[in-house]
C-alpha cells in the first residue's frame, strides 16, 4: 500500500534537515506504529506525506499503490486515499462542520469520477457515524473545530476519516491531550474502521494508545531515521525502559 | 498649487511675527528649505483632515495666549532621584547654571545655538530631514515652522551605551513666553539612550524631536508634560528605525489647555520595534490630541500604540492613529488601542484609528472604546468599604495601566502611578461620578 524509500527532508526556509533517509513499507490491512522521542521527525513525516508547505524533499520517494505521492497536490493525495488525522486539528470559523464534511466528501468523489452523495443519504450516514463516536447533532452544526475541546477535536478527526473512507490513514499523536475515556472512544472509532483493504500508520510518543489500537509492526524513529523495527513487544520495551536504551543500543 | 486665500493670509501674518531667517552656517539651508515647505503648505486649518478635531487657531496665532505657571507645591519634581545628565531650558532659553556639563559616557551633546554656526556638522543629515520626510502623506506645517525658526535645542550623538539618562527640564516662568526648541538624536549602531523630558516649557511651546535609531540601537523616551493649566503645546517626534532597533516612548499629560502630540515613526529595517504610549488626564478646559503615524517599510517589524485618556468636566480627548504597512513589509505585527474614560456627560472623545495595508502576511489590529466608569465595579469596591472617590481612582489607574506598562523602567513607572494617584485625589468630576 504505502511505500517510503530513502526519504530525505529539510525545512524550506532554514538549513535544517529533519528526515535523513526513512524507509517504510506498509501492506494492505496492516497497522504500523511509529514511536520516537520528541524532535525525531515523526510529525514531519506525516506532514510531508500529506503535502504541507514548508518542507523540501531532497531525496527519496513515497508511493501509494505505486503512485508517487510527493508530486501531488494535497487534495489529490486525499482523493488517492490518504488521510491524516492532525495532531492539532485546525479551527475554521464560520464554516459548519457538516458543510465542511460534505464539501470534502463530494470533492473527493468528484475527482474520482464517482457520483456525489445525496443530501439525505449524506445526513443519514453522518448521523450514524457520529453516533458511534458520541458526536451529537449540535457539534455537527458548530463551525469546524471552533470551541471544541481536545477530545472533541480528535473525535471529529476520526469522524472525517469514517466519512471519507481513506485507504491509508495516518494518525499523528492522536492520543495527545486525551483522557482515558476519550482515548477509548477514539480508539474504538479507529478499530471499527480496520479492514483488509485499509492500512494505518499510528504516530505516537507513548505506548498507551497501542494498548487500544494493536499494531502489527512497531518502528522506532530517532534523528530522522527509523532505527529499529519489531513487533508489538517493541512498544512495551519503550514503555518499560524509555527510549534511551534503544538509542544507545543502535548507537 | 497656490494656497487658498485664507491660508495665505494666516501664514503671512504669522511669518510677520517671526524673525527673518539668518543666512549663517550649515543650518541656514535646512531652515530655508523648511520655510519653503511651510510656505507651500500654509498653516493648519480646522478644515484639514487631521485637524478636524483640534482647532489649531491658538497654535497659529502670532502671539501666544498668556499662561501662568503652576506651583506643584511640595511635590518633588519628576525624575529627581535619578542619576541623570540635566539640561535646563527656562521659557525655551538654555540655563547653563542649572544644567550639568554637556558630556557623558558614550554620548556627545551640543546646543543647537552653538553648533548651528559651523560650516559642517553631523546634524546636517538629520536636522529637518526626518521632519521633511514626515510631511508626506500627511502635512505637518507646524513642524516645518519649528525647523525654520527653532531658537535652540540639543544635538545628541550617542556612540555607545549612554549609562546616564539625559533629562531635559523645561521650566516655565514668564506668562507670555513662546518657545520653539528642536532636538536631534543620532544613535549609532548598537547604541542606547534614555531621554527624559519634563515641564511645561512656556505659555506656548513648539518642540520637534528627530531621532535616528541605527541598526540594533535602542532609544527610550519618557516625557511628563508639565501641569500648567493654561499652557499650549504642539510637539512632534520624528523617528527612523533601522534593523533590529527599538523605540519606546511614553508620555504623561496632566492638564494644559491644548496639547497636540504628533509621532511619526518609520520602521525602515527588518525586525525593528516601536512602542508608543500615552496617558492623559484632563479636567475642565483641557484638549489633548495624540496623532500618530507609524509606517512599516520593512519585514517582521512590530509596532504598538497604546493611548489612554481620562476626561472630566468637559475635557476633550482626540486620538488619530495610523498603521501603514507598505507593500513588501510582510510579517508585520501592528497593534493599536485607543481608549477613553469619560467621567461625566460633558467630556468627549474623538478618534480616528486607521489601518492602511498593502501586504498580506500581516497581523494588524486596532481597538477603540469610549465609555463611563464601570458602575458595577465601583459598587463592588464600595460594598467592600472603599470610599467612592478612592474606588474611582483605583479603577482609573487600572484603566491607565496598559499604557503605563509600556515604561520599561519600573521605578519611573511607579513614580508616575503615584503622581497620577495624587492628581486624581485633587481632581474630581463636578458631576460627582
Amino acid at each position, binding site marked *: 500500500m504505502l511505500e517510503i524509500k530513502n526519504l530525505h527532508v529539510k525545512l524550506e526556509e532554514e538549513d535544517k534537515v529533519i528526515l535523513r533517509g526513512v524507509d517504510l513499507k506498509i501492506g494492505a490491512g496492516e497497522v504500523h506504529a511509529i514511536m520516537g522521542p520528541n524532535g525525531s521527525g515523526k510529525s514531519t513525516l506525516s506532514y510531508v506525506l500529506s503535502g504541507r508547505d514548508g518542507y523540501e524533499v531532497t531525496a527519496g520517494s513515497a508511493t501509494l499503490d505505486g503512485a508517487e505521492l510527493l508530486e501531488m497536490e494535497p487534495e489529490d493525495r486525499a482523493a488517492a486515499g490518504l488521510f491524516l488525522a492532525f495532531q492539532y486539528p485546525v479551527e*475554521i470559523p464560520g*464554516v459548519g462542520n457538516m458543510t465542511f464534511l460534505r464539501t470534502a466528501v463530494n470533492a473527493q468523489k468528484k475527482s474520482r469520477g464517482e457520483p456525489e452523495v445525496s443530501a439525505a443519504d449524506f445526513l443519514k450516514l453522518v448521523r450514524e457515524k457520529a453516533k458511534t463516536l458520541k458526536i451529537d447533532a449540535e457539534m455537527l*452544526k458548530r*463551525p469546524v473545530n471552533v470551541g471544541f475541546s481536545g477530545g472533541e477535536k480528535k473525535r471529529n478527526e476520526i469522524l472525517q476519516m469514517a466519512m471519507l473512507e481513506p485507504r491509508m490513514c495516518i494518525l499523528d499523536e492522536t492520543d495527545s491531550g486525551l483522557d482515558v475515556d476519550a482515548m477509548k472512544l477514539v480508539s474504538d472509532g479507529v478499530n471499527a474502521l480496520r479492514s483488509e483493504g485499509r492500512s494505518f500508520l499510528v504516530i505516537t510518543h507513548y505506548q498507551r494508545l497501542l494498548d487500544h489500537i494493536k499494531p502489527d509492526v512497531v518502528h522506532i524513529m530517532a534523528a530522522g531515521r527509523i532505527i529499529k523495527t519489531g513487533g508489538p513487544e517493541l512498544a512495551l520495551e519503550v514503555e518499560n525502559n524509555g527510549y534511551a536504551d534503544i538509542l544507545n543500543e543502535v548507537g | 498649487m497656490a494656497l487658498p486665500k485664507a491660508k495665505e493670509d494666516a501664514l503671512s501674518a504669522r511669518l510677520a511675527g517671526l524673525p527673518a531667517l539668518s543666512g549663517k552656517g550649515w543650518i541656514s539651508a535646512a531652515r530655508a528649505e523648511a520655510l519653503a515647505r511651510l510656505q507651500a503648505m500654509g498653516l493648519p486649518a480646522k478644515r484639514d483632515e487631521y485637524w478636524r478635531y483640534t482647532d489649531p487657531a491658538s497654535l497659529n496665532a502670532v502671539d501666544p495666549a498668556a499662561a501662568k505657571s503652576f506651583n506643584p507645591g511640595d511635590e518633588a519634581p519628576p525624575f529627581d532621584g535619578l542619576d541623570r545628565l540635566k539640561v535646563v531650558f527656562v521659557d525655551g532659553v538654555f540655563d547653563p547654571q542649572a544644567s550639568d556639563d554637556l558630556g557623558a559616557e558614550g554620548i556627545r551633546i551640543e546646543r543647537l545655538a552653538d553648533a548651528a554656526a559651523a560650516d559642517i556638522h553631523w546634524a546636517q543629515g538629520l536636522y529637518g530631514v526626518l521632519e521633511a520626510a514626515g510631511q508626506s502623506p500627511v502635512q505637518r506645517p507646524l513642524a516645518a515652522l519649528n525647523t525654520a525658526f527653532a531658537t535652540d535645542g540639543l544635538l545628541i550623538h550617542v556612540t555607545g551605551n549612554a549609562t546616564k539618562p539625559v533629562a531635559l527640564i523645561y521650566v516655565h516662568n514668564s506668562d507670555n513666553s513662546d518657545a520653539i526648541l528642536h532636538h536631534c538624536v543620532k544613535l549609532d549602531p548598537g547604541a542606547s539612550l534614555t531621554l527624559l523630558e519634563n515641564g511645561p516649557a512656556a505659555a506656548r511651546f513648539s518642540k520637534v524631536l528627530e531621532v535616528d535609531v541605527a541598526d540594533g540601537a535602542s532609544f527610550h523616551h519618557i516625557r511628563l508634560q508639565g501641569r500648567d493649566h493654561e499652557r499650549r503645546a504642539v510637539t512632534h517626534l520624528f523617528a527612523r528605525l533601522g534593523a533590529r532597533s527599538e523605540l519606546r516612548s511614553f508620555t504623561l499629560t496632566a492638564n494644559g489647555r491644548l496639547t497636540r502630540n504628533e509621532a511619526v515613526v518609520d520602521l525602515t529595517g527588518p525586525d525593528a520595534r516601536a512602542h508608543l504610549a500615552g496617558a492623559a488626564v484632563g479636567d475642565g478646559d483641557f484638549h489633548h490630541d495624540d496623532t500618530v503615524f507609524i509606517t512599516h517599510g520593512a519585514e517582521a517589524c512590530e509596532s504598538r500604540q497604546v493611548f489612554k485618556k481620562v476626561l472630566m468636566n468637559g475635557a476633550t480627548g482626540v486620538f488619530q492613529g495610523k498603521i501603514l504597512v507598505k507593500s513588501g513589509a510582510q510579517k508585520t505585527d501592528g497593534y493599536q488601542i485607543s481608549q477613553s474614560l469619560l*467621567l461625566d456627560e460633558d467630556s468627549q472623545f474623538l478618534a480616528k484609528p486607521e489601518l492602511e495595508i498593502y501586504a498580506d502576511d500581516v497581523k494588524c489590529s486596532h481597538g477603540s472604546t469610549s465609555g463611563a466608569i464601570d458602575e458595577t465595579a465601583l459598587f463592588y469596591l464600595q460594598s467592600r468599604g472603599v470610599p467612592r472617590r478612592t474606588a474611582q481612582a483605583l479603577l482609573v489607574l487600572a484603566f491607565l495601566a496598559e499604557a503605563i506598562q509600556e515604561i520599561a523602567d519600573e521605578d519611573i513607572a511607579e513614580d508616575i502611578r503615584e503622581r497620577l494617584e495624587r492628581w486624581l485625589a485633587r481632581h474630581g468630576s463636578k458631576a460627582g*461620578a
Partner: protein
Amino acid sequence: MTMLETVDGTEVREGVDRETIETVQAMAGKYKYGWETEIEMDYAPKGLSEDIVRLISKKNNEPEWLLDWRLAAYQRWVKLEEPRWAMLNYPEIDYQDQFYYATPKSMAKKPKSLDEVDPKLLATYAKLGIPLKEQMLLAGVEGDAEPRKVAVDAVFDSVSVGTTFKAELAKAGVIFCSISEAVREHPDLVKQYLGSVVPPSDNFFATLNSAVFSDGSFVYIPKGTRCPMELSTYFRINAENTGQFERTLIVCDEGAYVSYLEGCTAPKRDTNQLHAAVVEIVILKDAEVKYSTVQNWYPGDENGVGGIYNFVTKRADCRGDRAKVMWTQVETGSAITWKYPSCILRGDDSQGEFYSIAIANNAQQADTGTKMVHLGKRTKSRIVSKGISAGRAQNTYRGLVSMHPKAKDSRNYTQCDSLLIGDKCGAHTVPYIEVRNNSSRVEHEATTSKVDDDQLFYCRSRGMDEEEAVALVVNGFCKEVLQALPMEFAMEAQSLVAISLEGSVG
C-alpha cells in the same frame, strides 16, 4: 437537497454552501450577467444641461414642483466639485459624455400591465433569473414548508418596466410602484418625504441624482402593517454610455414592517458607466425596515478595463421612537464603489444595524462603510464589516459613529475585519468615532490578516482544491453577514463570494 434545509436556520445554510460549490463549478468564473439585450432605445441627447433635466421631467409627466426641485438641484450641482477624499483612484469622469436618459422604445407608451410589456424585456429578466410573473418563490428548496412571494419592481436603464403583485399588495394598503408612477398617483406622500432624508444639497452625487433621477421604486407601508411579502427592485443597466440614476423612497409608517431587497447587474463593456443612486428610508415610530443589497454590477475585466462606477447615497432616518433599520449589503461588483448606507437614530430607543461584505478582486476599488448618527436616547447600533481584497484591488472600510450629547445611554459595537488574498492588494480601515457624552459606550475593533494557510491546508488535505478551499474559508469569514440576509439572497451571495474570488489564488 431536502431534509437538511428545513431543520432549522443553521442547517438551511448547510444546503446553501453546497449550492455555492455547484454554482462555482458550473460557471467557471465568468461574470454571469455580462450579456446585452438588443433592443431599440430612445435616448435623450448626450450630456447634461437644464434642457435635459426638463426633458426627463417631461418624459415622466412630472408636476411643476418636481421640475423646480430638479432644476434647483441642477443649479447647485453645476457649482459643486466632485469629492476626492475616498481612497479611490479613477480618471476624471466627463459628465457631458454620458446619456442621462435611455428607455426602450416599446416603453414610450406606458404598458398598463406586465402582459403588455415587450417580450424582449420580459425575456431579459427571465434570463437574469428575476421572476416577473406573479409566482411563488420556492426559496430554491423543494419541500420547503412555506413557499414565499417576492414582489419585484424591474428597472431597465432609465425606466421601470413593471411591478409585480401590485394588486395583492394594494389589498394590504401597501404601495409598491415606480417612483415616477408614485409622483403621479401619490403626489402628497412623495412631496412630503422626497429629499427629507437625503436633501438635494447632501453631496455631489446626491445632488446630481436629484437633478436627473429617471426612475426607481417607491414603497409605502401603512400604519401597523406587516408587508405580506418581500419587496425587491432589480436594476439592470443595458444601454451603452448611459448613466443610471435611480431614486428609491421607502416610507414605513408607525408600527409597520418591510423587508426590501435590491439587486443589480450590467453587461460587460470596456467603457466605464456611471451609476449614482439615492435611497431614502423614513421609519416612523415602532416601525422596522430591512434593506438588503446584492450589488453585482459589472466589475470590469482582469485588467481593470470597463466596469460600473458606483456612487451611491443611502440613508435611513429612524424618526420615531423604537424605529429599527438593518442594512445588509454584499458588494461584489463595480469597478469603483463609493457607498455609505447610513442610519440617523433620531427616535429614542431606535436601532441601526449595518452588515457588509465587500469583495474587491482584480483592479476593483471599494470605499464603503456606514454612518451611525446617534441623536436619541438609548439608541443602539451595530456594524459588522467584512472586507476581502484580492488581485490588485483596494478595499477600504470608512465609517462614522457619532454619539451626540443628548444621545444618553446609547451603544455602538463595530467589528471590521479585512482579509487579504495575495500581496498586491490593499485593505484599509478609516473609522471616525465621535463620542460626546459619557453614558454611551462605543467599542470598535478591527483586524487585518491573510487567509490562513493552515485552514487552507486542512481543507485541501480533506480533498478540496485550492479555490474550493478559499471559497469555503472566505464564506466562513463572512458568515455573520450572510446570516443577516434573507435566504434567497444568502444563496446568491454565497455563490457570488466564490465567483468573485475566482482567479485570486495560485
